[in-house]
C-alpha cells in the first residue's frame, strides 16, 4: 500500500503519458464536440477507462439533447406546414427534410448513447488485447481527427452557401431592413406564422447551425468507426502476412517439395500461434456484428435521407436557375450529397475488404505448415466476412455505389413521370415560389 502511494507521488511530477489509440481515446475529441452541440449524452467521456462511461436518463445532458430535438421538430413541422399550404413542389421539401433528418438523427444518437457504454465495455477488453499483440499500421488518432475536421468543414461551407442562397434569392421578399430582413428571409416558414423578435432570430440561427452539424455527424460517425474497425482488421492481417512470409522464406528449396511424403502429423505447425490469431479474428468478427446492430439505424437513416436528397435535388435541376448564386449553391449541395453517400459507402466497404484480405496469404502456406486452425480461419473468413449492414437489408461493399446509382436513376424516372404538373409549373420561369 505504501509502495503504491510512493509510486503515485513519484509519478505525479512526470509528464502525462500518451493514451493508447483505442476507440475510446481516438473518438474522445469528436464526441466531446458533439456533446457541445447537444448530441452524445454520455457521462465521463474524459475518463481514462471506457468502463466508467455511463448513460442516465435523468441527467443534464439528456435534457440538453431533448431541448435540441424539440427545436428541430419545431422547425421541421413549421416548414412542412408551409410547404403543404403552398402546394408540394419538390423544391419546398428541402427545408423540412433537413430539419426532420436532424431531428431523427438526434433521437437515434440518444439511442446509440444508451447502448454505447455496454458496447465499449465489451470492445475495450478485446481492443486492449489486440493493441498489445498486434502492431499498429497507422497513426489512428491523428487520422480520425483530421478526417472529422475536414468533413465537418466541408459541411459548414455547404450551409454557408445555403444561407447565402436563401438571403440573396429573389423570392420571399419582405419589407423590413437589416437583421430583421435577413432573419425573415432565412426563416420565412416560421416568421410567416409567428411574430418577429431579434432573440428568436438569433436562436433560430444557432439551431440551424447545430442542425447542419448534426445532419453530417451521422455520416461522419459511421466513417470514423469504419476507419477504426478497418485498422483493427489490418493489424491482424499484417501479423498473418509476416508469419506467412517468414514460413515461405524459410522453406524455400522447391526441389525438396517433390520428394516430401504427405503425412498426417505436422511437427512444424505452430498450433498455438494460429489458434491465437483465429480466436482474435473471431472476437473481432463478433464485435463487428454487435457494432452492426447498434449502427444499423444510423446506416439506414443515412442512406435513405441521402438518397431522398439526391432525388429531390436532381428533380430541381430541371428547373431554370435565376441567379449565379443559386446555380453555385445547387451544384455544390448536389455534389456534396453525392460525395457523402460515396464516402460512406467506400469507407464502410473497406471493412469488408480488409476482413477478407488475409485469404491469399493463408492459402499460400505450404502443406507441412497447414493445420486445422488455419483451415478453420479460412472457412470463417470465407463464410462469415464482416460488413456493416443496414438491419441486414444490404451490405456495405464497393458494389453498393453502383447499385445506389442505378436506384437513383430508376426512382428519378418515376418521379419525373408522376410529377408532370409540377414540372409544367417549373417551366414557366416567372413563378414566385418562396422556398
Amino acid at each position: 500500500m505504501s509502495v503504491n502511494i510512493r509510486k503515485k507521488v513519484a509519478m505525479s511530477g512526470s509528464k502525462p503519458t500518451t493514451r493508447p489509440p483505442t476507440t475510446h481515446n481516438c473518438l474522445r475529441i469528436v464526441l466531446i464536440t458533439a456533446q457541445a452541440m447537444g448530441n452524445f449524452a454520455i457521462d465521463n467521456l474524459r475518463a481514462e477507462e471506457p468502463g466508467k462511461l455511463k448513460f442516465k436518463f435523468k441527467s443534464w445532458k439528456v435534457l440538453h439533447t431533448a431541448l435540441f430535438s424539440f427545436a428541430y421538430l419545431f422547425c421541421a413541422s413549421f416548414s412542412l406546414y408551409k410547404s403543404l399550404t403552398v402546394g408540394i413542389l419538390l423544391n419546398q421539401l428541402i427545408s423540412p427534410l433537413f430539419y426532420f433528418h436532424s431531428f431523427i438523427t438526434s433521437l437515434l444518437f440518444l439511442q446509440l448513447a444508451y447502448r454505447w457504454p455496454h458496447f465499449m465495455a465489451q470492445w475495450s477488453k478485446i481492443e486492449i488485447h489486440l493493441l498489445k499483440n498486434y502492431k499498429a499500421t497507422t497513426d489512428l488518432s491523428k487520422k480520425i481527427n483530421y478526417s472529422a475536421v475536414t468533413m465537418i468543414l466541408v459541411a459548414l461551407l455547404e450551409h454557408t452557401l445555403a444561407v447565402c442562397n436563401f438571403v440573396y434569392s429573389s423570392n420571399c421578399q419582405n419589407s423590413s431592413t437589416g437583421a430583421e430582413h435577413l432573419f425573415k428571409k432565412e426563416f420565412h416558414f416560421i416568421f410567416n406564422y409567428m411574430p418577429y423578435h431579434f432573440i428568436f432570430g438569433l436562436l433560430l440561427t444557432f439551431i440551424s447551425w447545430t442542425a447542419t452539424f448534426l445532419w453530417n455527424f451521422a455520416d461522419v460517425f459511421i466513417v470514423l468507426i469504419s476507419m477504426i474497425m478497418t485498422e483493427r482488421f489490418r493489424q491482424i492481417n499484417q501479423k498473418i502476412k509476416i508469419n506467412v512470409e517468414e514460413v515461405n522464406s524459410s522453406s524455400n528449396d522447391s526441389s525438396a517439395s517433390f520428394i516430401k511424403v504427405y503425412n498426417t502429423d505436422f511437427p512444424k505447425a505452430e498450433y498455438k500461434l494460429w489458434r491465437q490469431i483465429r480466436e482474435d479474428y473471431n472476437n473481432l468478427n463478433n464485435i463487428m456484428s454487435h457494432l452492426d446492430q447498434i449502427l444499423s439505424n444510423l446506416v439506414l437513416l443515412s442512406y435513405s435521407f441521402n438518397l431522398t436528397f439526391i432525388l429531390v435535388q436532381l428533380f430541381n435541376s430541371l428547373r431554370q436557375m435565376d441567379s449565379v448564386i443559386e446555380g453555385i449553391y445547387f451544384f455544390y449541395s448536389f455534389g456534396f450529397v453525392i460525395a457523402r453517400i460515396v464516402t460512406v459507402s467506400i469507407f464502410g466497404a473497406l471493412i469488408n475488404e480488409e476482413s477478407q484480405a488475409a485469404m491469399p496469404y493463408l492459402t499460400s502456406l505450404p502443406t507441412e505448415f497447414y493445420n486445422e486452425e488455419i483451415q478453420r480461419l479460412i472457412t470463417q473468413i470465407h463464410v462469415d466476412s464482416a460488413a456493416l449492414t443496414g438491419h441486414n437489408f444490404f451490405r456495405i461493399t464497393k458494389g453498393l455505389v453502383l447499385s445506389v446509382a442505378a436506384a437513383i436513376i430508376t426512382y428519378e424516372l418515376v418521379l419525373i413521370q408522376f410529377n408532370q404538373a409540377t414540372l409544367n409549373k417549373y417551366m414557366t420561369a416567372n413563378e414566385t415560389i418562396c422556398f
Partner: protein
Amino acid sequence: MDLVYKDFVSSFMFNANSAVSGIIFFKLARKWPLLMEKWSKVELSLENYGNNNRYQKRKFVVIISVIMSAAIVEHILSILHVSQIPNENSNKLEAYFLTNYPHLFNFFEFSIPLAIFATVMNICNVFSWNFLDAFLIIISIALTEKFHQVNDEIHIQRHWMKLREDYNKISILCKIVNKEIADLILVSFATNMFFIMSQLYWSLNQHKTTTIESIYFCFSFGLLVLRTVAVTLYASNINDESKKSMSYLFSLNSNTYNSEIERFAYQIHCQPVALTGHDFFKITRGLLFSMAGAIVTYELFLVQSNIVASY
C-alpha cells in the same frame, strides 16, 4: 441540344480518355519490370507442363491486328463522313478541318501546322482508345492460358501438392495484375459505356440522310459494341477457366481423394479469381446483361429529361 454541343462533348471525352489512359499507362510502365519478374517466376514453375501454350504469341498478333485494322477502317470512314457534309467554304481542306476539330479551330485561326498537329493528335487518340481495349484483352488471354495449363495438367499428372501450389501462385498473380490494371479497366469500361450511350442518344434524335452517314454510324456503333463485348467476354474467361476443374476434382475416385485435393477444391470455391475494377464490379459473364440493363435505364433517363427540358 444541337450538333455543336454534341461535337464538343464527344471530343472532350475522346481527348480526356487518351490523356487519362496515357497517364495510367505511364504509371504502369514504371511498375512493369517488377510485374514481369513476378509473372516469369510463376511461369517458371509451370514450364514442365505438357500444354505449353505455343500459340499464345500468334493469338496476340491476331487480336491486335484485327482491332487496329477495324480502327483504321473506322477512321477512314469518319474522314469520308465529315468531308461530305455540305459546307459553304470554298477551300475543301480548310472546311474539313474546321468541321472536324471545332475544339481547336473555334479558338485559333486555321493554319497548316495547326492542321497537322490536329491530325496527329487525332490519330494518337484513336490509337490509344483502341490500344486500351486490345491491351486488356491480351492480358486476359495470358491469364486464362495459365489456368488452362493447370486444368489440362490435372488430367495428365496427379501431383496434387504441386498443382494446388501452382493454382495458388496463378491466383495471387491475378490479384497482383488486377491491382495494377484496375484503373485501366475502370477507364475502359466508363469510356465505352459513355460513348455507347451518347451515340445511341444522338442517333435517336437525328435523321440519317445519306448512305455514307448511315454506313458510318452503323460501323462505328457496331465496332464500339463489339469491342465492349469482346473485352468483357475475354476478361470473364479468367473467372470461368479458374472454376473448370472443380467438378473434376469432386468426381475423383475415393481411393485417390486426400486432404490435399480437399484443400484444392476448397480454395477454388473460396477464392474466386476475377478481374475487378477496383472492386466496384466483378467481370463475369453476367456483367454483360447488367451493363445492357444499365445502358437502357440511363438512356431512358436521358430521353425523359430531354423531353422535359425542351418544353
